[in-house]
């Protein structure tokens, strides 16, 4: 069971209630006109033509950010949200480089900076069995909270019930190996600023393919090096102790 969010872009009226609810709950400054995600705007409603696109952390099932984090500051919780422990973070910013959706942002102007991203209200609400602030306040029912399986079923039901309304694609069902934030849209997602060529396989697999081979490499190379050291030394010893050639006898 994984907590998830389904955002139906055809229903979003762009009222920004989710944005303000998020800022209120997380105590973030309410500056106007936030157009993109930042360290103080963890969810945002972008306008692409006439479509309102609410962006937030995708909460991947196998998150690249958590896999690259050297200290486990970012981690996938059993309930579903990808949470962040700022007391562990060393500020290497590999999560920002590694995220295929460019979600994590940094507090560049603070002397003790943190990584900031949507945590799906994990500590305040979701871990206590409640739903996050953004889905609570959505007046249009455009963004809803639930279990991932149930939301996928609901999304498929909507696609089947009104195929003319949507492109036949649930964004997040397979992207990056599946995400906990799902989208429905009337317009192809790549026209809405969603990364188009996101892989279907989990990103951590790419580096794990390399890392998982290292023990073999180390053991083979280690034995090889010691072997070479021993053989060459032995040969030099033998060469020194060899009886002199016949002619000199």
């Amino acid at each position: 069971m994984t907590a998830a969010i389904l955002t139906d872009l055809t229903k979003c009226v762009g009222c920004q209630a989710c944005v303000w609810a998020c800022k209120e709950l997380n105590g973030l400054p309410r500056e106007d006109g936030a157009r993109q995600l930042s360290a103080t705007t963890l969810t945002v409603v972008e306008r692409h033509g006439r479509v309102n696109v609410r962006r937030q952390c995708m909460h991947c099932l196998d998150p690249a950010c958590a896999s690259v984090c050297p200290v486990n500051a970012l981690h996938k919780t059993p309930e579903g949200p990808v949470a962040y422990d700022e007391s562990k973070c060393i500020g290497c910013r590999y999560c920002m480089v590694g995220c295929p959706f460019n979600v994590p942002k940094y507090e560049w102007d603070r002397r003790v900076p943190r990584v900031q991203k949507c945590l799906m209200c994990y500590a305040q609400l979701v871990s206590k069995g409640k739903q996050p602030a953004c889905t609570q306040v959505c007046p249009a029912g455009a963004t809803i909270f639930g279990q991932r399986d149930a939301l996928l079923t609901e999304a498929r039901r909507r696609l089947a019930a009104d195929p003319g309304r949507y492109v036949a694609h649930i964004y997040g069902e397979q992207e990056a190996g599946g995400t906990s934030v799902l989208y429905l849209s009337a317009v192809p997602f790549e026209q809405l600023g969603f990364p188009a060529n996101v892989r279907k396989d989990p990103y951590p697999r790419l580096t794990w393919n390399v890392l998982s081979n290292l023990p073999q490499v180390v053991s083979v190379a280690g034995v090889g090096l010691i072997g070479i050291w021993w053989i060459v030394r032995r040969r030099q010893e033998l060469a020194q102790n060899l009886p002199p050639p016949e002619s000199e006898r």
Partner: protein
Amino acid sequence: MTRGLRRLLAGVTFWRLVLAGLFALGAYATVVRFGRGLGAATNLSDAFPWGLWIGFDVLVGVGLAAGGFTVAATVHVFHIEHYKPIARPAVFTAFVGYVLVIVGLLFDLGQPWDIWHPLVMWNPRSVMFEVAWCVMLYTAVLALEFSPLVLERLGLHAPLRLVRAIYVPLVVIGVLLSMLHQSSLGTLYVIVPDKLYGLWYTPWLPVFFFLTAIAAGLAMTIVESYLSQRAFGRELEHDLLDGLARVIVVVLGVYLMWKAQDLLHRGQLALALQLTPEAVMFWGEIGLGVVLPIALLATPHVRRHRSGLFFAALLVVLGFVVSRLNVAVTGMARSSGTHYVPSLLELGVTFALVAAGFTAFAFAARYLGLFPAATGGAAAPAGARPSPTASGWGIAGLWVLLLAGWALLTLARGREDRPATAVLSATSATSASASPTRSSHDVAPAGWPAAPALPAPFRFPRGAHSPGVVTFDHASHLDAAKPQCAECHREQFSLLRPGRPLHGQLVMERIRRGQLCGRCHDGQRAFGVVAGECDVCHSTP
């Protein structure tokens, strides 16, 4: 007093002034970095979180120090003993290099005081975790490998015997650790297939990083020997350096073939033939940093000359610097949607670190006997003159030409596709080249939904003293094509409490005070409350 001053002034040379200037700039940058944060000191941003400090201070720094493990393995594992004179400077360079890498990291990390966290907070799935452990352990190994020189000088024989006893296992461990993290610096980028430009992204990045580090580490040893001959008259035997040069040719040759085959196999070779900033830097890396040095170093005539060898090795080092910066900066630029140019303070820190490296090396060469004494005279063949094929001016000219081309193309590209609005997501390198047209934000593509339906007119419940029912019609208050819902639904009629948008009571008194409807209906932005005209709003009796 005057004699002291005169002696001090006599010690002031051009290079010492340059060093002092660099250290001053570095000190200023340090104050800004730690006093006001990364944002104030660097040009890094959310779109470009890794810049010069990772690209140069870490990736280049670690790579140029690779001579340490290569030479140590040659001497102590392969028993090619006549290379022994090289081992000392190579190991010392590596040690200084790693210390500087760690110092550079302290600048780049957001919370440098927590740099020890990977020791106790483990994530074995993270490449960064592995690099952190290897760099830390290898720096310790290098300190031990280098310690005999210091212990000898201090006359501490007991610890010296101990280090000598474990020296071979130490070298083997050092080689293994180096293999791991030299390659892992490349693995760092294996997780960004959509962001790193096609000329550089490949699952073989770890192997390429390892091979190029070996070549660059050996080239660095040659460069250092030449510089130390110029500065102190001490250098390594030319025969030994000649041997290193041959190894460089082989390693670079293997790398070149592998790289070409990989580009061909992934169908990215065409990218190298386009006129883009990326392609120019790619040829800088491969043409000036791999192909040309292979040709030069494979020519006995060039290799025989001290300066021919030096300039060819310098090409390898410069090519290596560019190859790392290509992965960290050039190759990540297009997908980021921004143009990153390091700030003066970022450059200041990097130059100060390089200056610190040179200072440490000069100190060690002079006082620690890094190079065997008095080999200078007989080292190079008599009458060694700069080889005309690889003179300093020639190299400088080629590189200036290349960088100018890169700058021009970058500027041209910036003008061409400056995005109209900042878009959150990355358009990847491949998709950007495949579909260069951006969707216009004004024209609705096919399948676009009609404007969102506005809520039905809302009848406010009638109060006790109300002259008539008020019906609020969304349609007459806002443009259905561009509804600015948050204009009212943020403060005045908050949507944050669904079903109960109103805080307190809706009374005329509050409207007159500029709250609720009065926020706009103030007589200026929209008609205000006028005595005797209640029925304008209270229209239904």
